[in-house]
């Protein structure tokens, strides 16, 4: 009889969940929980961006535009439901559906953007996706029904640790399974040599659009979770600079390594919070005029240093064991 393989990813996620629940009992306060939640949201954003930038080797600079679509769409739905009846617990199924709706909307936007732009390459593609990301943001900034420049306020706080963790797990598992499948192989071939991929019969454009749509879908989910964590969807949350932050995570972890993206999402989210609080306590201790923007200076330096001295990031294209699906006949 065949022994089923241990689903290590699930085990790790469950372990993480249990650890946090235990720590909650011994002083893991709301702030720490917030950091854990935020890290998981960034896991979703970074892993989904890695599908586009790492696995299939395109270059998107507008990832937060997709997140914005997810945030606004799901946020609009849940605020509406919430207004009709403010019983939070009853709304979780609706919340999940709203998130998925946000993801689907983002995916549709991804396809709409993908078709005309994906024949562009490298730096041109980067600029155009940046442009689209900014256009999406500008559009939300100008729609009064979702608050315009004030943002969409009063979003219910539905993003609990468990929900975010569950979606992060699903995102990682789905993208991993695709990356490790025949489809993933086709995508990697496109990254490695697009012309050769074309000439072994891979529909390169089709794959790029699909990867864009899938990446956008999960970014939309991530954006929705984010909005329901902060209880607001605001145009400035989805600016270009935040797309760059996610990009930094992908590169710090190693483009093409999903493991790297997960690790970097945690590391950099925690580092950001440490820097913020460290700088502000240094400020109050010494009286030095060190404003809040210094951590962004450090982020920028980090990005430059990675590109100059360690282009492959933390992991290169390597994956942790639990991220690799072994082939059937090699034990």
């Amino acid at each position, binding site marked *: 009889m065949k022994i089923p393989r241990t689903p290590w990813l699930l085990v790790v996620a469950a372990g993480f969940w249990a650890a946090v629940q235990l720590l909650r009992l011994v002083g893991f306060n709301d702030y720490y929980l917030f950091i854990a939640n935020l890290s998981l949201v960034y896991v979703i954003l970074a892993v989904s961006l890695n599908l586009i930038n790492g696995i299939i080797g395109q270059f998107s600079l507008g990832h937060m535009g997709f997140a914005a679509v997810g945030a606004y769409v799901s946020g609009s739905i849940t605020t509406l439901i919430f207004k009709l009846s403010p019983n939070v617990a009853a709304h979780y199924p609706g919340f999940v559906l709203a998130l998925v709706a946000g993801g689907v909307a983002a995916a549709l936007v991804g396809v709409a953007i993908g078709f005309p732009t994906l024949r562009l390459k490298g*730096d041109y593609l980067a*600029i155009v996706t940046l*442009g689209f990301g900014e256009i999406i943001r500008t559009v939300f900034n100008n729609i009064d029904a979702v608050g315009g420049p004030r943002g969409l306020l009063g979003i219910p706080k539905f993003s609990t640790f468990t929900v975010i963790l569950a979606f992060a797990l699903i995102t990682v598992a789905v993208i991993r399974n695709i990356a490790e499948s025949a489809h993933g192989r086709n995508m990697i071939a496109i990254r490695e040599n697009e012309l050769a991929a074309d000439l072994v019969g891979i529909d390169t454009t089709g794959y790029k659009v699909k990867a864009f749509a899938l990446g956008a879908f999960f970014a939309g989910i991530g954006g929705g979770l984010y909005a329901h964590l902060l209880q607001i969807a605001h145009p400035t949350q989805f600016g270009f600079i935040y797309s760059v932050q996610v990009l930094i995570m992908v590169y710090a972890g190693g483009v093409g390594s999903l493991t790297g993206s997960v690790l970097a999402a945690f590391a950099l989210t925690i580092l950001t919070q440490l820097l913020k609080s460290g700088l502000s306590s240094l400020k109050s201790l010494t009286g030095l005029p060190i404003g809040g923007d210094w951590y*962004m200076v450090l*982020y920028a330096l980090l990005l430059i240093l990675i*590109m*100059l001295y360690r*282009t492959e990031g933390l992991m290169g294209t390597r994956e942790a064991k639990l991220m690799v699906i072994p082939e059937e006949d090699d034990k």
Partner: protein
Amino acid sequence: MGSIFNLQQVVNGLQLGSIYALIALGYTMVYGIVRLINFAHGDFYMIGAYTAYGAFFLFNAVLGGSGLPMAAVALVLAMLASGLVALLTNRLAYRPLRYKPKLSSLITAIGVSMLIEYLFSALPFIGPSFRAFPEILPSVPIKLGQNATISTHALIDIGVAAVLMIGLTILVRHTTLGKAMRAVSQDKDAAKLMGIDVEKVIAWTFMIGGAFAGAAGLLAGMTYPRIFPFMGILPGLKAFIAAVLGGIGNIPGAVLGAYIMGVAETFATAYNSLLGEGIAFAILIVVLLVRPRGILGEKHADKI
């Protein structure tokens, strides 16, 4: 109010276009020579504006406040500062990546841009908030026919841009450096074989491009007197798009693209502010889809 398609909009568009042109030239020259979209280029423009701002307060006492001498000093210092930062950026960040994949340089450029912006924003004596730019030269409206005026500022913007562009044309066409620049942009390896110091040419290109952006920063400060550390992002992007529109790598193309962009944006904004915000990106997308090489750009094909 009358039609939005009036002479006044054209004048405003040309004024804006002059500033874009000065920025776009740096983009296009650098792209022509190292095939890099220098994302930080808009920040050189910001540095020019801040340098001019600082120069005003530094030399206020000596030069007796506003006036032409002050404007000249501010212009020279703005160009110098931006040129030097551009030079430094090239040396420290881009040169080590010259023969690595193109995307590494682009990402580094994004990092450099972020670094400059947030550094300015974080430095206590600069800070993130808007500052009012001093009136270095007064703005006097001059009547242009029935219902349009042109300000002295507009004349200065258009004039300074014209003078610098003529200077650049002479430099590129008639000097040894200009010839070397053209050679390097055609074929780096061949230029090297011909004994051209390619890195030196690249350095000069960054320096000149940066200086032009610095000049644009001063002009923009005088014309739209509000400066802040992130002021370079949008004009930088728009100037880049102008360069693409004209044919990136092509010097007259950048100027043409910039004036089209300036006029288009002025008209679009007069029509609807959302359209004004989006027109540049709309232009970019249309150009890339319809004619990716731009109006004056040459066709490149990768050999297989």
